[in-house]
């Protein structure tokens, strides 16, 4: 469907879509909420790139050409620009939540906070999920949780006061091994989270320590009580 509207100064794609809704197509299905790039509701593919519509200025797009706005193609479409992102919510339920260590004095350093704060900035816009080729092109939703949930798991594993070890989950359910460090996820993240470098690679290193690195494995076997 094609619409023509007048672009105003400083307008973003979402402004244009809402103008279409207001004047030309009152039933245009679009999901949005805060219009301030904080809620992560208005993800769409603008000229083929996963973007937040409220943060994509019209004047940064090629002048004189129509702007193509499509729903997030890695997910089933509900209608018009609205995708069904419910799969993501199902995945979250499979991740054991924060479980505090018992009998420990509740102190944390600012550096520990800063490390996981980068991950906890995630607004669940699912643009990274949309762009990840493992989910999008290879349709491996049954085997890979996706970059957003690698970040969620990283924020838990790197919390100094969390008591659980999610490395089994990472290897056997979350499909950490399926990520081949293409790094498209980090490129589309509106919060500029370094998903691969700061989240996924450290998780891979921790998994290697536990499952694959021969020295620590031998060390653990030697230390294990016999009998």
């Amino acid at each position, binding site marked *: 469907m094609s619409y023509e509207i007048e672009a*105003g*100064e*400083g*307008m*973003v794609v*979402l*402004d244009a879509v809402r103008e279409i*809704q*207001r004047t030309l*197509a*009152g*039933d*245009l*299905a*679009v*999901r*949005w*909420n*805060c*219009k*301030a*790039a*904080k*809620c*992560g*509701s208005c993800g769409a593919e603008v000229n083929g790139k996963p973007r937040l519509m409220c*943060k994509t*200025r019209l004047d940064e797009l090629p002048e004189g050409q129509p702007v193509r706005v499509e729903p997030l193609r890695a997910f089933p479409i*509900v*209608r*018009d620009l*609205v995708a*069904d*992102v*419910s799969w993501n*919510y199902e995945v*979250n*339920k499979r991740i054991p*939540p*924060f479980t*505090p260590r018992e009998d420990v004095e*509740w*102190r*944390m*350093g*600012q550096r520990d*906070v800063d490390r*996981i*704060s980068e991950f*906890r*900035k995630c*607004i*669940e816009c699912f643009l990274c999920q949309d762009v990840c080729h493992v989910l999008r092109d290879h349709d491996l939703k049954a085997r890979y949780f996706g970059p957003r949930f690698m970040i969620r798991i990283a924020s*838990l594993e790197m*919390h100094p006061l*969390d008591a659980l070890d999610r490395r089994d989950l990472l290897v056997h359910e979350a499909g950490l091994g399926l990520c081949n460090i293409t790094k498209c996820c980090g490129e589309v993240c509106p919060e500029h989270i370094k998903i691969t470098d700061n989240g996924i690679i450290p998780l891979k290193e921790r998994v290697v320590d536990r499952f694959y690195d021969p020295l620590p494995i031998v060390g653990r076997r030697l230390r294990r009580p016999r009998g």
Partner: protein
Amino acid sequence: MEDYETHEHDVVVIGAGGAGLRAAIEASACGARTALICKSLLGKAHTVMAEGGIAAALGNVDDRDDWRTHFQDTLFGGKYLNNWRMAEIHAKEAPDRVRELERWGGVFDRTPDGRMSQRAFGGHTYKRLVHIGDRTGLELIRTLQDTGVHRGIDVFMECTVTRLLKEGDRVCGAFGYRRAAGDFVVFKARSIVLATGGIGKCYRITSNSWEYTGDGHALGYHAGAELVDMEFVQFHPTGMIWPPGVVGLLVTEAVRGEGGILRNGEGERFMERYDPRRMELSTRDVVARAIYTEVREGRGSPRGGVFLDVSHLPAAVVKRKLPSMYEQFRELAGVDITREPMEIWPTCHYAMGGISVDPETGASCVPGLYAVGECSGGMHGANRLGGNSLSDLLVFGKRAGEGAARHAEEAPPPEADDAQISEAADQMLGYLAGAGDANPYRLHEELQSTMHEHVGIFRDREGLLRAAEQLDELARRAEHVRIGSGGRAYNPGWHHCQELQNLIVCARAVTQAALRREESRGAHSRLDFPAYDQYWSRHNLVVRKGREGMEVEPRPVASVTELAPLVAERKAAEAAALAAVPDEIEIGP
């Protein structure tokens, strides 16, 4: 009548922001079968926007702080119209609720010795706001969301409730539709908790998100609940002005908390003339009126606002403490706040008014109906302090969840009435049928214009009467609002026809209450009644649905005898401080 989905629960919570999530978690913990319904996707409620922090008298940064001062600050901010018991409970219980949030995985900035850090904020005597950068709301809602999904709560995302169902006096359920396919759904419940947030979409310039159409206020009103303090609408002093698409977007008070300075078009630090003691960290109503006055008297910035400046702070500090402000201005307005000032203007931000509730349990006057968070009223009085909303959500979210669960234990099994369900369905279907030509978006814009012109920061009798007339006319035309295309599958135009009705109820309630309160206090400023009034110092206004229509009635402020000494102490201290500063205009209550 077409087929519809039916669900039965002990407690149904409508709205999944901080308050709704906390209530659902508590109800479930008390053993109630709990449902959580939200219009948007889970975790994307307006709570995500909160930037300042959670106010709690932990005393981590200043050990002089305790609940008594927090209580006094809250009452001073609310200009003594608050429900005293709510303010007391809030001050006493906020510290526990925040510590609990940490134990659920919430992560906040630290003091040098590893405890939660707290920052200064307008109206708070001591550094009291627990925070993580400038994204505390996101942290709060995400922590509650990630906890909530493992507590056996049934979540219904993108589902909108249009009407509460009643059995005699008490509520017994809710009628709504699934946004995706437009199918109808009925929730049977022994207790219902309204947690739908505020009414900001009644105004043209607002920081509030798409969701804030006053649904809970309207649902409660129609079900017989009382709305209190509706005239008090908070205009946050600092919203963006440019570009047009971001008008109203919030610039957090934390900017001022971290040392930001306000200047008018002439470069003067004008707060000196309005509140020399607190300056930029005065209460929001005072700062908003100051900005409005500066511009009206011709000392505004080029685009008709004033300047907020942090360029005197080290750039590294700005980027670490206010990262999303830095981003927001850079991305959306092309302004580098470490080098240039921001242009700002007041924006409709928060509704102090809402459903009147019992301070201990969150119960409204309708049996089985509870309300919590921004859609409830009384806690904040005539003006809310920054940081007091996030703490409000946690403290009363827990209490309302508990209250609703206890009530459900005693309540009879809910029976849904077919006649009410049919009526609710017909109302929704009517927006698609028929030849009416009223466009819901245009009517909404007209409503926003009316409120902006006549029921904004400064009000007067003539303007309020005009607003009331215009709203009556709008209500008549809204009876014929239609969306002629698209059918029922994810049709926002169809949804908006109902939201418009809710907005009209809220707009009328604000206007009628504003007309009735003939004084200026907190966020309510009457140009024709600029001083405090003795009678209104002691009364709140209650709005309810009567036989003939909307009724407005005064009610004495809910004070508490045991707390009177604390209040008297604060009033005396404020009077002494005013007496020490000559030429100050403010007249104390």
